């Protein structure tokens, strides 16, 4: 990763409190970590907060740092775990809210309901997907459900879920060709 430096040297440097080494790792990985966190959280500022706080924790506990895999693998896993915590936290919050408002219904998996601001062209394209494909795509895209959840709700294999979403994206890409250029 970092400019050809052997990983052991970087890890040792960080463990010894070398801030330059730490900043270098930060510079090298920050953006791709945020991109990954964003796929999990779907919220850019939440993603950045998560990645930043992971780096802060890493620096705090640098003297006891044990990295067996590559630095990059270590960081991605750490971000992944924090994002899962974050998602768990959200779930607790929304359960609280739902409870105190005594059910506003909805966990939103009605395929007919799209975000309001969505362009007509896109809405039509999604609406025109084959039924099962559309259903699965909507659950993933708009309800933010992960494959295992979709799989258990629809009683379909995770593989099928993945194939269908892949198919949906390819169909949409064709459909929106002239529009997706930006």
């Amino acid at each position, binding site marked *: *990763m*970092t*400019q*050809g*430096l*052997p990983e052991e*040297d*970087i890890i040792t*440097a960080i463990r010894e409190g*070398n*801030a*330059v*080494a*730490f*900043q*270098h790792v*930060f*510079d090298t990985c*920050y*953006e*791709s970590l*945020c*991109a*990954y966190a*964003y*796929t*999990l*959280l779907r919220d*850019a500022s939440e*993603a950045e907060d998560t990645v930043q706080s992971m*780096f*802060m924790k890493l*620096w*705090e506990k640098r003297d006891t740092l044990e990295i067996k895999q*590559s630095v*990059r*693998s270590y960081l*991605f*896993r750490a*971000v*992944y775990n924090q994002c899962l915590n974050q998602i768990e936290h959200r779930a607790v919050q929304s359960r609280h809210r739902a409870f105190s408002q005594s059910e506003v219904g909805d966990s939103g998996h009605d395929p007919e309901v799209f975000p309001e*601001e*969505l*362009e007509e062209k*896109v809405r039509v*394209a999604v609406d025109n997907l084959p039924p099962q494909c559309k259903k699965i795509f909507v659950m*993933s*895209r*708009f309800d933010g459900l*992960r*494959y295992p959840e979709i799989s258990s709700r629809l009683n379909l294999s995770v593989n099928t879920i*993945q194939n269908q*979403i*892949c198919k949906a*994206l*390819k169909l*949409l*890409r064709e459909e*929106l060709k002239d529009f*997706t250029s930006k």
Partner: protein
Amino acid sequence: MSHMSRIEIDDDLIVRYLTGDAEPDEAVAMSEWLTSSANSAYFSQFENTWRRSAGAVQPEFNKRDAWKRVSVEIHVPVAAARTTRTTSFWPIGVAAAVITLAVSAYFLFFVTPKHDVVEMGKVATSDGFRFVELSDRSTVTLHRNSELQYPDQFQEADRRVRLARGEAFFNVASDAGKPFVVEANGVEIKVLGTEFNVQLSDTEITIHVREGRVFVRSAADSITLTAGLSGHVVAGDITVTDSSVGNLYSYATQRLVFNDASLTQVIHDLEDSYPYTFELKNQSLKNCRLTANFYKDDIDKIVNLVAETLNLTVTKDGRHFTLEGEGCL
């Protein structure tokens, strides 16, 4: 043993990544795969569709702002500790300060705390490179198996250091009143402020001048070298050649230029500039030729690009790369 792309990147993984269903290891593989611009273009077709399908905007992550925030939290100066010195004291107009800084970020890891550098007045390398900052803000990048001796403070009329063995790249801070002198096997190289490389072998001392002017004096001869020239001192005699070709001192500048270079040459230059070794699995690979420019790229990225261009398979084992492929005619 780790394979560069242990995890195969296919459409399924791309989609899984976008939907937030990729495992960390898969995301790592994706992030490495995405360093290729062809891959990234392919990826963005999916990403675009995924994003537009929910009317989302492309998120932008700014590592500089983020680092400011993080560095405050963890009480580290924004330009981390040791570089602050280098950045803030450079007189404006010193030759190629930018390059020096880039190099320093890279090599500072090798500077273990002061006792090694300042008190002993000597720094030596074995199988790694090393970056040294002198008390006058001049900087030296030491190649492998090299040794540099220098005082803690330059108190004499000139700033005098000694290259005891090996090779070093000097970026000398301007100080008109105090010449900077490198001694190497009885040869003196004298400058005011410039960048140059000194390479020492048993029989010869080679000086490449990157910027400015350098005065070289042996017991028997003397000459002034300007940028783009090399001086060769053999048994006291100095000859001059053109040094504008090839990847000289790339270990210090991190700039590599290949112009229809043979793969053998490419590997030689990479080994000379990075702490890694290479092996060509098939003889026919030696016929492959490459044209490419690299500047401050990390080794994985370079190797990936070379492999992609020449259709090679790469295996990385610690600090060793093995290249395999059909070869070239």
